[in-house]
């Protein structure tokens, strides 16, 4: 089966159609999985309750039922809203998520577009969602929305920088900006000469991993960095005026983005779709790769959501000083240390 897949070389239009279909199917599926597993089930267990029980076996189809409910709702826009911008905003946010999936490799060849500057592309595209958030906040003509959007903009810009700096350490170590290249470098790498499990960069770049996860948490606007959507302060911020399927799109985008960021963290720090004892060039990864990546994504997502369900929320200025006074200096030190060690060894 694998050789046939490797030699599968469809014409351009067909491969494009396949890619669009795959991304279009994967995005809602991943959002659904994270929503059900973490938001409904694991959160419930952490809070000593059962979670949804009725829809489907053990309530696992609850999110599907909720999705259907959202689609049935009337599409309402506020009187003073800037209609065109208001309606486009969720789509802008979602498009940023869709574009992120383009670069996420599930194995050496199972990737929509294997970009040479994958890391650069991912970081650039992820900031696109800010525009959608600002559009939503401004066009809603609601004070809570506006405050939420401005908070989101300030926060996403502040945390873009630590995220970039955290990744630079990985790029220095791998010597490439291609996400697949980073996986290969980890699989064939060595930790100070020891090649037992390759070199998952979480071992050497643990500071980078910590900063990356913190920045991801802020980009996803999850507690402790959820001021843009803080329900007890500004009543869900820029989402407050959205109902029905437009709200559903925000929800989808949030969880699909959580999945893809967890995937990128897994690729850059946990060895991606490869396992240590199997060469990255093996054909087995056509079937094994997605499963391995999925398992690692679930581990990273668990960390992200664990923090989300545990901590209270910081204040906006405290969040800014955490980024500028702590994360960025730490990331710079990490880069220097990585560069020095790279030269020495």
């Amino acid at each position, binding site marked *: 089966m694998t050789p046939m897949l490797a030699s599968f070389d469809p014409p351009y239009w067909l491969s494009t159609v396949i890619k669009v279909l795959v991304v279009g199917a994967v995005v809602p599926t991943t959002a659904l999985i994270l929503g059900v597993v973490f938001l409904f089930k694991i959160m419930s267990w*952490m*809070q*000593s*309750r059962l979670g949804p029980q009725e829809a489907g076996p053990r309530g696992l189809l609850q999110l599907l039922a909720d999705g259907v409910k959202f689609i049935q709702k009337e599409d309402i826009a506020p009187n003073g809203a800037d209609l065109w911008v208001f309606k486009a905003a969720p789509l802008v946010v979602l498009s940023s998520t869709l574009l992120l999936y383009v670069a996420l490799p599930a194995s050496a060849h199972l990737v929509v577009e294997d970009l040479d500057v994958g890391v650069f592309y991912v970081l650039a595209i992820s900031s696109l969602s800010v525009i959608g958030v600002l559009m939503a906040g401004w066009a809603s003509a*609601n004070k809570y929305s506006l405050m939420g959007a401005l908070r989101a903009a300030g926060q996403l810009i502040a945390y873009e920088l630590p995220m970039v700096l955290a990744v630079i350490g990985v790029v220095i170590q791998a010597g490439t900006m291609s996400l697949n290249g980073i996986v290969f470098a980890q699989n064939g790498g060595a930790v100070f000469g020891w090649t037992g499990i390759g070199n998952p960069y979480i071992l050497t770049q643990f500071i980078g991993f910590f900063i990356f996860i913190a920045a991801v948490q802020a980009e996803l606007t999850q507690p402790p960095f959820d001021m843009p959507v803080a329900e007890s302060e500004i009543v869900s911020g820029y989402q407050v005026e959205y109902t029905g399927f437009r709200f559903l799109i925000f929800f989808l985008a949030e969880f699909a983005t959580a999945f893809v960021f967890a995937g990128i963290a897994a690729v850059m720090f946990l060895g991606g779709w490869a396992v240590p004892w199997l060469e990255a060039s093996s054909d087995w990864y056509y079937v094994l790769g997605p499963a391995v990546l999925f398992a690692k994504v679930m581990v990273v997502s668990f960390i992200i959501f664990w923090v989300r369900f545990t901590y*209270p*929320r910081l*204040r906006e200025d405290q969040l800014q000083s955490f980024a500028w006074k702590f994360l960025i200096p730490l990331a710079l030190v990490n880069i220097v240390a990585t560069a020095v060690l790279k030269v020495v060894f």
Partner: protein
Amino acid sequence: MTAVSDPSQLSDLVAEATDTRVNLDFESEGMTLNMGPQHPATHGTLRIVAKLDGEQVISAEPICGYMHRGYEKIVEVRTYPQINALINRIDWLGSFANEVPFILAAEKLMGVEAPPRAQWIRTILFEMSRVANISLFLGDFGLQLGGMTAGFYAFRDREHVLNMIESATGGRFHPNFDRIGGLKDDLPKGWIADSHVAMDKLLAFCDEMEDLLVGNEIFQSRTRGIGVIPAEIALNYGLSGANLRASGVDWDLRRDGCPPGLVYDQADWKVWTHPDGDCFARTWVRLQETREAAKIVKQLLDTIPAGPVMAKVPRIIKVPEGEAYVATENPLGEMGYYIASKGDLVPFRVKIRSASFNNISIVPWVARGAYVPDLISILGSLYFILGDIDR
């Protein structure tokens, strides 16, 4: 009738007239943010009109009365036992505590005293409602600061106390158990042992909250130094309860003015104060108070005397002419009833002094200069219950 026929135009006019159209109305100097009457952080229907400069609060004015039920007027046409059922609804999280000062005031006018066993059980249930009330505060405050899990733990563990209150009185939220001259019933079998277990669970809950929330660095950075109320200001605004003690004023009606009929002197306990007066101090004092209340309950459970739970009172209660004021230290602060009686079946006039109404009066003073997220911390830590404000 005016000439406006278009409904949307009419609603705009109405909105302008009542100054509630906050969403479209950007002022040039700062912004007016209307929080509530429907807002997740106001526990109901408190409305706060905040003038903002960016995210900084220039002035904040609480507007209450959206839940006014006219209790002070309605009790003038209700008999004393009927009033007892009504006033359960004032502070609905610690209902039993609402009954006690009213009953004590009526007993004072009638010259009746409840038998010792009734006094003991009254005190135990009073402290149990304090535990139920404040344990929910701890979780709810966490919820307002974004820590979801604390809220669910609070609901889970409050259930143990509510179960005990229910099994003794028959009502989870509104016991209506207190009577002039004693109590409705004696305790059920096995209640004392079960209550010990429940109080142990609540003490464990307090430890858990200290780990999860009060000891958390993010929580502390959100509450320390925020909303500082100096002792003098707190006294001037008439704060009471934990809000006052958190400002360093060592005053507790349970110790410094306990009306006859409650047996706090029979237990060994401590009044906690905190010198800082900020949101953290208020939370911390309440946490300690929950522990103390659980300890009081455990001590009194072991020393309940035997005997009847009801004194001899006439079947139809007529309170003799006179006036009396009795206040107790309720979960939210000082709660008192001033009863003026003309010797009828119904009181001539009742004034209800509820703690939350005074406690939120300080909001305009303490919210100046705070940020919007701090406003949430301040409102949460002042801990008011809407039924207690509006009555």
